[in-house]
């Protein structure tokens, strides 16, 4: 429940994360005739995770377009459409399949404006169901946000609440440049209050979702919920953790993170992607080079995914990414000066 996107005076409704995204898409399709949806099985099937749902019935197959199983070509069609006047929202069935379309996303979409000296724009949105926890093993459970976060020309967001999922998608559609949205699969069924109608959540802004003074925990996507759970537990022990929902990987909200670490002097980064060269590496590095460095009174801690593909066995799968107890133990050790 990020302060930035909740407007108490605005009417809101309880929705799941998936419903909130669908609501955003419906609003966009309604408001702007140039918006189209593309993806595999997003029509009558309603999307692999039922995110597009009944939109094909409401907006027709001309605007809710089932593609063949052709990720590279499909993404490229979206890029070409964006380049010539449409605003496509392209759904990858799993973010893992974006590995097939890196050429169109990275070599084309991200660079066209620049290569063409500002004479073109590619306002495309790529939606990517992401992360582990569904028992789908190594090729259906990856977290690629660090890859895209490394690419100039892209914007990359990771909502953690239904309200942000809607607001960031609507912001992505207003953005004149390509935006990648990572949607954690385990969040799709999560419910939360969502403002009705059109609104945007700014891209590039993190949210302080819990204030505290003892330690800063920067978390992304589903890890925000684990961090909040840990923070509630820690509070019982007298440890007041400040929890920041990263929300945007590119651009990253340096100011919010730096301000928090200046205050707490301790930083823990929690993310699901592989630890090495993951989002936590960037957060750590931006603090280590910033004015907050002088305020740091302990090493920066990173809790990321294991250095392994995601395993199938459910116990191994859980062990492969940070869980609430892992956050608890690292914060406790940090606060006690054990690291």
């Amino acid at each position, binding site marked *: 429940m990020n302060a930035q996107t909740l407007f108490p005076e605005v009417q809101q409704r309880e929705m799941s994360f998936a419903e909130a995204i669908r609501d955003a898409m419906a609003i966009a399709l309604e408001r702007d005739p140039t918006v189209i949806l593309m993806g595999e099985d997003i029509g009558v099937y309603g999307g692999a995770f039922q995110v597009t749902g009944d939109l094909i019935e409401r907006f027709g197959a001309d605007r809710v377009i089932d593609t063949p199983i052709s990720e590279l070509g499909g993404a490229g069609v979206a890029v070409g459409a964006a380049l010539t006047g449409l605003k496509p929202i392209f759904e990858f069935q799993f973010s893992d399949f974006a590995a097939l379309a890196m050429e169109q996303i990275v070599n084309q979409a991200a660079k066209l404006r620049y290569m063409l000296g500002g004479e073109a724009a590619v306002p495309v949105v790529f939606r990517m169901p992401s992360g582990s926890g569904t028992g789908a093993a190594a090729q259906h459970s990856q977290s690629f946000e660090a890859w895209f976060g490394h690419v100039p020309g892209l914007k990359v967001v990771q909502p953690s609440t239904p309200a942000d999922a809607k607001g960031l998608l609507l912001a992505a559609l207003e953005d004149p440049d390509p935006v990648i949205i990572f949607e954690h699969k385990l969040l799709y069924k999560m419910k939360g209050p969502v403002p009705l109608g059109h609104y945007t959540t700014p891209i590039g802004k993190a949210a302080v979702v819990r204030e505290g003074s003892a330690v800063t925990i920067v978390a992304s996507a589903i890890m925000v919920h684990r961090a909040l759970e840990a923070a509630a537990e820690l509070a019982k022990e007298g440890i007041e953790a400040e929890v920041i929902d990263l929300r945007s990987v590119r651009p990253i909200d340096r100011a919010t993170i730096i301000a928090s670490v200046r205050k707490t002097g301790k930083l823990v980064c929690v993310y699901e992607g592989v630890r090495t060269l993951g989002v936590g590496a960037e957060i750590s590095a931006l603090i280590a080079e910033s004015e907050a460095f002088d305020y740091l009174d302990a090493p920066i801690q990173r809790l990321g995914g294991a250095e392994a593909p995601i395993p199938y*066995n459910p116990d191994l799968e859980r062990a492969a990414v940070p869980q609430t107890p892992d956050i608890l133990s690292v914060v406790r050790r940090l606060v006690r000066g054990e690291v």
Partner: protein
Amino acid sequence: MVENQKNIPFAFRHFTPEALRRALRKMHLIRLFEEGAEESYMRGLIHGTMHLSIGQEASAVASCMELTDADKITSTHRGHGHCIAKGADVGRMFAEFFGKETGYCHGRGGSMHIADVKTGNLGANGIVGGGLPIAVGAALTARRLGRDDVTVCFFGDGANNEGAFHEALNMAAIWKLPVIFVCENNRYGMSTPATYATAVKNIADRAVAYAMPGITVDGNDFSAVAEAMHTAVARARAGEGPSLIESLTYRWRGHSKSDRNRYRSKDEIEDWMSRDPIMRFRTDLIAHGVLDAAGAEAIEAEAKAAVAAGIDFARESPSPAITDVTKFVHAEAAA
């Protein structure tokens, strides 16, 4: 006599009764395995999702009839049938689904990654089209090492629209590699009809674009598939290059566990179910005197027992140690 011979379908001319009975057993085993997996899933013994090949048994088994352990296959997310057809043990398969250390992948892969490289099964694949270039690479190895093994590459109608299909078939063709591309056209890629997603009516017609033979067969007709495969395997072993076989079939179940079947009618499903490939083969076997009704029953019962034993083995097997998350990422350093 020659005339008579011609009226007998290929399979009954070509294979020994023993081989045909083994084929029937494998088909039953696949069906019962899938049913056992489905039930285990319902009972919460299996995690994740799975893609069942019920209804496609004839295609899988007939495609593997003339393969030895040295021959390779690459399979798909809907790969249980191929796996059994190539000779896998259902106990180790169930163990894998149950996430156990005794599974084919020691519990790390699950349904979408079952493989048995030693006997030539290079694995299921979670990526649609992922196995296509890999199969070509396996065929390149055979060529380079001077072996005469062939690789059979299974893929679906949906996969035929992936760029990997095009690149793989083109390379196999220009290098005349010993690979047989078997497209199991079960009419849908998830919810998307092949008639919508594929520009051409018969996927086998795409063979023209690679100057290779292409043939569309009734994938529920064991003998038709076996005959097409026989020609293609012989061609591949003779160094004459690849072939494309389109095997028309149907999956009775939904795409995966979360499918609500909104894209197809109950009538359509029932129509296909009424033409069960296993019963069809069994009837043919009896008609050609390969076995009698009691013999068929015995084969089915025996397969049933194997599945039950497999599930027991899987249930009783140990799970991997949680501390072993990073084991198998790389080769163990030589001790």
